[in-house]
């Protein structure tokens, strides 16, 4: 599964980090320039404005860096939660497959079906005939007590969704 690794929050953090780095460089330049101008002509309005800009940039660097840290932490938490959910889902699936006494071949077919592969794709992946796959899928539905792929999928979705719904003490007011 090559697709699962990218996280949108990641790109946002990278963008903010780029701005922070640019601001840090700009702050160094303005500090240098303001120091130069103070040496040359004392505290003229021009120098005062430069100093204010330098201060603003430094403040921007600090708040930006804290923002990057927040975004990075948030992105990491999301990824960890996703990993936990993914791990939990595969555990639930294995458990259910055992309960339903699926054969290894049926379990394979069931996984492909849950991933959204159609019969032709499953045939290709398993190198078996369409009739075989169709028969296996029918037995999977039978053993699971459902009559469609959507119903099969919703069995697992239900397992994952039940926790938050019955969580006590949560009100929408």
């Amino acid at each position: 599964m090559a697709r699962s690794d990218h996280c949108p929050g990641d790109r946002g953090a990278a963008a903010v980090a780029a701005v922070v780095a640019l601001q840090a460089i700009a702050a160094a330049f303005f500090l240098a320039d303001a120091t130069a101008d103070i040496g040359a002509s004392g505290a003229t309005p021009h120098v005062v404005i430069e100093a204010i800009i330098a201060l603003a940039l430094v403040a921007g660097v600090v708040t930006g860096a804290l923002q990057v840290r927040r975004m990075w932490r948030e992105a990491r938490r999301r990824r960890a939660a996703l990993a936990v959910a993914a791990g939990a889902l595969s555990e639930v699936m294995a458990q259910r497959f055992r309960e339903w006494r699926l054969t290894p071949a049926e379990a394979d077919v069931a996984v492909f079906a849950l991933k959204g592969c159609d019969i032709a794709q499953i045939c290709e992946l398993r190198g078996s005939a369409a009739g075989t796959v169709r028969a296996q899928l029918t037995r999977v539905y039978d053993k699971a007590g459902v009559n469609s792929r959507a119903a099969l999928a919703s069995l697992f979705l239900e397992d994952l969704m039940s926790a938050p719904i019955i969580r006590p003490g949560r009100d929408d007011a």
Partner: protein
Amino acid sequence: MTGPVAPPRRWDPLVRLTHWGVAAAIVVNGLITEEGSQWHVWVGLAAGALLALRLAWGLIGPPEARFTAFPPSPAAAVRHVRDILAGRRTSHRSHNPLGALMVYAVWATLAVVVGTGVAMTGFPPAPRAHEAGEVAGRPEANREAEGGEEEHEGEDEGIGEIHEVAANLLFVLAAVHLAGVAFETRRSGRQVVTAMLGGGDAPKDA
């Protein structure tokens, strides 16, 4: 890999940015810009700013970017070398102990290079004395340079020497660093490289 879903690791964006920014500055100032030229001075100052940013990040950044995650410890480095020799694979949340020593060495050397650079140009940065004539905008600096030429020359030469030696050391360290990355890549995979690249896989938080 602890399980099928263990995410690949990657450094946070600020670490990556400061790393590549400093790397670029070292290459540019070592190979491209003319010594003592205006560009050389400003690129060096930018590298100093990035170093300062990374050091601040070492205090307030995410856990694996902080100094506490990779303390400079020769003892740990020796242990790490033993692990390597024994063929033991160890995973580290942050830099491995050898890498940590390299990090501090590079920072210290870079600080010396930037510090001596600033000492030579002065802060405000102005081009080196022998090129000062080219800067029309700062006549005061010229006059000062003329007045204090005698005693300034000798002092500057010493600082210039340090600047050059430290800059060369920086290139040696960079070469050792690349060798270390190549070695670690052969030993434990491309992860060392992808962790510092922007694209590719997920973050350094396995």
